[in-house]
């Protein structure tokens, strides 16, 4: 998952970024509205965290411009004022949720997870596709209630694929959403991780959860238990 953090206070910005990285996100960050808007337009991402009181371009204007460009990117606003007028204006401009400073990092993470799930059409807190269940809050994956041991990167791959279960996800999209920097992007690495995931999730080859579509990418084939 890729997140964009736009917050002008260096300390808070860093706290959020390091926490997101800890949670396995690829993170881009900006400390003003203009740079932030550029990041959002240029990099495909899964969620944006936008402070309302930004220099150069206010958070409200950033959100309005993102929505005017037709993007459905889930946006969470941070407000120091805590006034309902700010919250309602932010949500009215197109934000999806708000958080008043100061906040608990856990709360921020929980809200972000909800927003990402909601955007992908999931309503439950855990993702379930057939016998495969992924719990984002604990980052654990079970198959038929048996826990599967995954590395951090393997988890990122399966989370993204399951989040978009049924959709074709190209290698470049996967790398965009999983890698932090441009440098170490190697699509062969993705192939290695997919192969390992197949072995771990489906050792006897009975489920075949991940399908390879030659030249197009991968698809998580198990039917998602989405309620809406």
């Amino acid at each position, binding site marked *: 998952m890729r997140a964009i953090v736009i917050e002008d*206070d260096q*300390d*808070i910005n860093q*706290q959020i970024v390091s926490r997101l990285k800890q949670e396995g996100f690829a993170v881009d960050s900006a400390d003003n509205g203009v740079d932030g808007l550029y990041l959002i337009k240029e990099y495909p991402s899964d969620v944006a965290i936008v402070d309302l*009181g930004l220099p150069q371009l206010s958070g409200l204007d950033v959100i309005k411009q993102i929505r005017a460009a037709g993007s459905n990117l889930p946006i969470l606003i941070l407000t*120091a*004022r*805590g*006034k*309902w*007028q700010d*919250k*309602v204006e932010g*949500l*009215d401009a197109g*934000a*999806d*949720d*708000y958080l*008043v*400073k*100061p*906040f*608990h*990092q856990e709360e921020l993470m929980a809200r972000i997870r*909800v927003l990402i*799930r*909601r955007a992908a059409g999931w*309503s439950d807190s855990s993702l379930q596709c057939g016998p495969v269940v992924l719990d984002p809050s604990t980052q654990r994956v079970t198959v038929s209630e048996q826990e599967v041991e995954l590395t951090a990167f393997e988890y990122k791959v399966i989370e993204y694929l399951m989040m978009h279960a049924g959709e074709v996800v190209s290698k470049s999209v996967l790398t965009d959403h999983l890698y932090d920097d441009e440098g170490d992007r190697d699509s062969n690495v993705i192939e290695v991780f997919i192969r390992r995931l197949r072995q771990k999730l489906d050792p006897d080859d009975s489920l075949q959860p991940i399908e390879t579509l030659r030249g197009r990418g991968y698809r998580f084939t198990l039917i998602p238990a989405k309620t809406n």
Partner: protein
Amino acid sequence: MKSIKSRMMLTSLIVLVAFMVLTAIALERAVEKRMLTAEENNLKALMYSVLAAVDRDSTGLSITVSDARLFENALFDSGSGLYALLYDKKAEIWRSLSTDQPFYKLTDLSPEELRFSQIEYNDRSWFQLAFSIRWPNVHDKLSLYELVLWKNAEDHFAQLNRFKQTLWLWLVITVVLLLVLMWLVMLWGLRPLRLIGEEVQAIENNQKQRFDSSYPTEIKPLTQNLNLLLQREQHQMQRYRNALDDLAHSLKTPLAVLRGLSEKSSEWTDEDRHTLQEQNNRMNQIVSYQLQKAAMVGGQSMARPINLVSLLEKTVAALRKVYSHKGVSIELKSDLNSLLRMDESDLLEILGNLIDNACKYGRKQVRINAIQLQQLIRLTIEDDGAGLEPEQLQNILTRGIRLDQTQEGQGIGLAVVNDIVDAYDIGMKFNQSILGGLEVTLEFSNI
């Protein structure tokens, strides 16, 4: 006396009437005196013409009036109301032919005295001119005689009365005409004041920002100063809010950093971290509460009317987004179009906090209803949550306000709502909802 118009009309009425009455009385007196003088002069002229006809009688010892030398016809005409009588020391010695009733000698003059008087005699009003004359007889002995003229005064008084009637009639007509004229002048003169009233209303209704009609020079300084005042109020409000926003920003961000630090597990013992977080929470709540309280506008004198239902719709739309993952249905029922006279951010604060609470504590359903009841608007917000016990209902407000005792999770929202509700004198009640949860009822009378 509430209006300037009625005050001025009353004063003008008193002044006009007093002036007219005094003028009339003076005029009446002058005319009366003049008419009386005219009567006296007429009688004097008559007196001299009668005197010209006086001569010794045939005996030569006394005098008489020779009718042949009298020219005044009225003295020959019985009942003409004009009579002449001549007396010597003892009795009447001559009377004019017109004299049809007895006239007694009433006067007692000193020699050569001429006396004019107005008297009542035989139930009638008369003018009387009496002249005491000396006349020599044939022996050149001077004797005293008295020549008396009577004139019926009723014509005179009838004429005087007619004059008075005409005078008063015209005075009343003049007063009425002048009052009507004054009324019209006053309407014209007070028009700028009425215009100011209309403009103030337009400013209150947010149809205008300032006084921009052209006013007469006497009122212009007032409207110019009011414009300055309005402008300064708007600027001051803006500056005040900006300053508060800056303060919120500058205080809350360090608090957020402190909180973030306290959550880094390695550097603190569990107990320290807990204390740090607790104190951090409290500082944050106090800062939030005080800032919200200060930012509250509360009963602004020229608050612009805002539409309750459109703000409700905006808030509900925002909260539907926030609570969509919870599957709460927020139902808003109202076809009101009424305007409330209060600050928009204050109203949003009330609606946001109360509806947010309903969504937070409700299970699946939140119901909002606004209706108009005569002079007030009643807004109810209900949820289907667990609700509160009766004693909790009683304490809900006091608990919210006592910040130093609030537990984490009990936001400052309700305390802020309570402050705003107090400032605007809005009624707020908590009850058990038929949906099972809490029902908050607000009664706005500032419509």
